[in-house]
């Protein structure tokens, strides 16, 4: 420490400094400041809840190491084996389904002259917007063996049977997969956009068949993105509760999260067992992270290089109408059916099968009810603030940290990567508990404010932000930064003017994703909100608890409308900022 005060070093030199050494020092300082700061924040966000979780799982009542929580969670009578198999089958099935659907759609969207691109974009976002509880409920009304509209209106009259059953493992995978496919779509769209198709073109010119090109060129190039997406969706399915809770329980299909729900809901709540299950999830997810980073290391591919490229769109030719019809069908199944059921339900006083009597009783009563709810305006305002805030903070942190992880040799960067990923497996309820525990004791005015919700959302969605950002960063060739540096740009200038714009496609996709999912977040919110900081998901939960399924449907419909507008605005802004828009080409 020096006693004399020095004037602060200018952070953004507008003219190149004369001495290269000083310039290097300035650049280094800012870089250390920004990267170091981001790393501290990420470390803090991740370690606090994980530390809390491990503490309560492994430490006994007399502060000694104890494994009794694991005995309770996985011991006799817990049927842990079946539960784990169900969890894995459900998570693996949903992730695979979502990945195939999402990647195919992304390919069609970015690389072909497929018709109805706007429709596809909507189809890829709406399931993301609809809160899980509502999406699962909508599918009950569609796919229930006795009252499901798909069965009663389509299959029963045609086949005389009701083959669709959402309460089976396949049904769960279907609903979860459709709910997740947008994540895969968003991730893969940005990957396809960042990929130079000239490599594929050269392969094709050299006489490789379409399949060979796909197998030997396209898939290897996409591997970082595919692996990232697969991991994310696998873990998210492991961690999701709504589908296993609403659909799985009907036939006694238990997974990790439904067990966690039970031990936390039991009286008195068993935090140790909940922790033991969460640690189980953590172990599976860590294995996934290690596997994925091993797959990534076996040849990462930079696909955004200094060379200009303009992807040629593949002409579908005679297949175009068929593929177009496929898109319309997909749109119908993922958007029109579930949202249609919600709109239908939102017009009824209490849910009933479609009949003349039901149709006659339709009204806008529920919408009026929503607008009259005393906290509706506060909730809307808070949700928008938190969604935009969390998305911006997370994507900034993720961009900086993923740059450090992907681009530098800073020691401990792999640990940082893993740390940034761990919040994904912490059940929201446990996260909420941990945060309230910490901020009630820290002498900062955070508890009971929107700040604690912002911290919670940033923690929860950091892993997603990281996947989006690191996929974008991995794809970018180092030569772009190097040439910027050669031309005298500072690190911050390079980051701001070169890296961020080039990665913007991935960053904006991540931003949109986080914005949307923030609107749905409930499990940690429920412990952290206070009078005055209610959000939309709390409003939804209140209606759900209250049994107002039809009012709930009205809120869902309004939310879909609101978020579609927000996403379109973000998309427009993103396009101005550097996001390439496929529809404009």
């Amino acid at each position, binding site marked *: 420490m020096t006693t004399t005060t020095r004037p602060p070093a200018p952070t953004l030199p507008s003219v190149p400094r004369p001495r290269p050494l000083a310039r290097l020092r300035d650049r280094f300082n800012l870089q250390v400041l920004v990267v170091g700061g981001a790393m501290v924040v990420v470390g803090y966000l991740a370690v606090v809840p994980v530390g809390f979780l491990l503490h309560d799982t492994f430490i006994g009542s007399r502060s000694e190491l104890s494994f009794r929580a694991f005995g309770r969670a996985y011991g006799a009578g817990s049927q842990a084996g079946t539960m784990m198999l169900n969890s894995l089958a459900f998570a693996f099935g949903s992730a695979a389904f979502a990945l195939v659907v999402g990647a195919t759609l992304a390919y069609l969207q970015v690389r072909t002259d497929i018709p109805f691109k706007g429709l596809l974009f909507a189809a890829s976002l709406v399931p993301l917007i609809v809160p899980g509880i509502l999406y699962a409920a909508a599918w009950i009304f569609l796919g229930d063996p006795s009252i499901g509209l798909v069965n009663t209106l389509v299959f029963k009259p045609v086949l005389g049977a009701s083959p669709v059953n959402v309460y089976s493992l396949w049904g769960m995978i279907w609903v979860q997969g459709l709910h997740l496919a947008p994540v895969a779509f968003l991730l893969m769209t940005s990957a396809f956009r960042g990929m130079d198709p000239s490599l594929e073109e050269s392969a094709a010119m050299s006489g490789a068949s379409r399949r060979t090109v796909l197998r030997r060129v396209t898939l290897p190039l996409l591997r970082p993105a595919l692996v990232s997406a697969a991991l994310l969706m696998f873990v998210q399915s492991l961690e999701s509760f709504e589908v296993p809770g609403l659909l799985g*329980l009907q036939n*006694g299909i238990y997974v990790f999260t439904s067990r966690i729900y039970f031990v936390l809901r039991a009286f008195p709540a068993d935090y140790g067992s909940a922790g033991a299950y969460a640690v189980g999830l953590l172990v599976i997810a860590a294995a996934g992270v290690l596997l994925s980073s091993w797959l990534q290391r076996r040849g990462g591919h930079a696909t955004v290089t200094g060379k200009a490229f303009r992807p040629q769109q593949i002409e579908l030719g005679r297949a175009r109408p068929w593929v177009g019809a496929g898109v319309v069908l997909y749109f119908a199944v993922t958007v029109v059916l579930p949202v249609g059921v919600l709109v239908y339900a939102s017009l009824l006083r209490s849910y009933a099968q479609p009949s003349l009597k039901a149709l006659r009783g339709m009204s806008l009563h529920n919408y009026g009810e929503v607008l009259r709810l005393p906290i509706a305006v506060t909730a809307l305002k808070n949700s928008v603030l938190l969604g935009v805030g969390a998305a911006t903070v997370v994507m900034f942190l993720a961009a900086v940290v993923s740059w450090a992880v992907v681009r530098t040799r800073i020691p401990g960067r792999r640990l940082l990567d893993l740390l940034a990923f761990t919040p994904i497996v912490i059940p929201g309820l446990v996260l909420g508990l941990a945060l309230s525990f910490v901020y009630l004791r820290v002498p900062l005015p955070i508890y009971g404010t929107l700040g604690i919700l912002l911290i919670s959302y940033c923690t929860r969605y950091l892993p997603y932000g990281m996947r989006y950002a690191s996929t974008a960063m991995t794809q970018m060739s180092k030569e772009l930064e190097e040439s910027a540096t050669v031309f005298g740009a500072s690190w911050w200038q390079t980051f701001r003017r070169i890296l961020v714009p080039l990665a913007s496609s991935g960053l904006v996709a991540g931003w949109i994703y986080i914005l949307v999912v923030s609107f749905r977040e409930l499990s940690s919110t429920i412990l952290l909100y206070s009078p005055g900081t209610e959000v939309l998901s709390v409003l939804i939960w209140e209606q759900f608890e209250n049994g107002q*399924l039809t009012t709930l449907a009205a809120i869902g419909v309004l939310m879909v409308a609101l978020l579609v507008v927000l996403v379109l605005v973000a998309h427009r802004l993103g396009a101005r900022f550097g996001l390439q828009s496929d529809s404009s080409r």
Partner: protein
Amino acid sequence: MSAAGAFSLLLLAGCGAGAADDGRIGAAVVVSSQAQKVYDEIQAQPPARQRAKAVQLAKEEGRLEVYTSLTDDVANAVDKAFHRQFPGIRISMFRGNSETILQRILQESQARKLGADAVESDFLEMSSLDGQKALAHYTGPGQARVAASSRFPDWTADRFNVFLPAWNTDLVKPADVPRSWEALADSRYKGRITLEPTDSDWYENVTHYWLTHGRSQAQVDRLWRRIVANSHVTKGHTTIMALLGAGQTPLDSMNYTYITEQARLKGAPVDYRLPDGTSPLPAFARPNGVGMLRGAQHPAAAWLFYDWMLHEGQKVLVSLHLTPSTKVPGDTSLAGVHLAPFDVKGLTDPSTDWDKKYDEQLRGVASAKGTG
């Protein structure tokens, strides 16, 4: 380094003991001698003058924070009615489910930042707060308005959740309605019953009822196994009610009668009483109640709310079809229903974990037994 810094902060913040052994997170209760003084000052008055004293002191306090697990339509109505009567006291209600309410009070207590003055929640959570000595003793005139069975050491029941089966009236003809809890085990209900996975208090009460009405343990076990074999499980009483109304399931093993009644009044084809307005099964009424906290920052307002909930507040509950704990003109929520005593002792017995038992029963764990 950042990790280490954060972690030390956490350890600093946390207490030593974790939840590995018994799953519980310990909590120390906040006690304020200031609050106790106010409670004493009010209750030292003759009963007829206690209310006036409380109103005077509460107006000086100016604020009231209530944590409640009442559903939001009821909470809003209570908020409004209380505010109308006492415009000088700014009431603010935090709504959450009963576990959240308990969790929040314990957490805030531990951190000495208790926000709640009064609490209105479910049986188990109120019992737990009572057991941890978080609640102050109330001796006001409200005590005399409720039956002895509604008085607990440091809280008082202000409403009941009544447990009875509910059915879809389009799918279950009056002749096919179960006439006893045992009937749920009949093979004619195979695949037609819905169970809720957290209804362990119902499970305990029915088990206790059977064991005290001449059934052997073996018979009770057999009945439960057959009921579970007849059923599928859906989470959430209100979800079940929506699905029941939609015809997804014909029969709900148990729901709170007010939920059924609210759905019926909205036009859903559901009921818990036969067409003649009676219910043939013994119903269990779970007391939920009101308490004032020993660590309250606005004790006079807390006392006033407690007293008000057992008096004027009762009418608000009745207007929304809840079952009040006092006699209120116009209350028909118990018409045609005959009540069996609610087994308070069995449910609060710390040696038996009914949640775990019920969960094992539902999952068909071989050792599951409905013993006490």
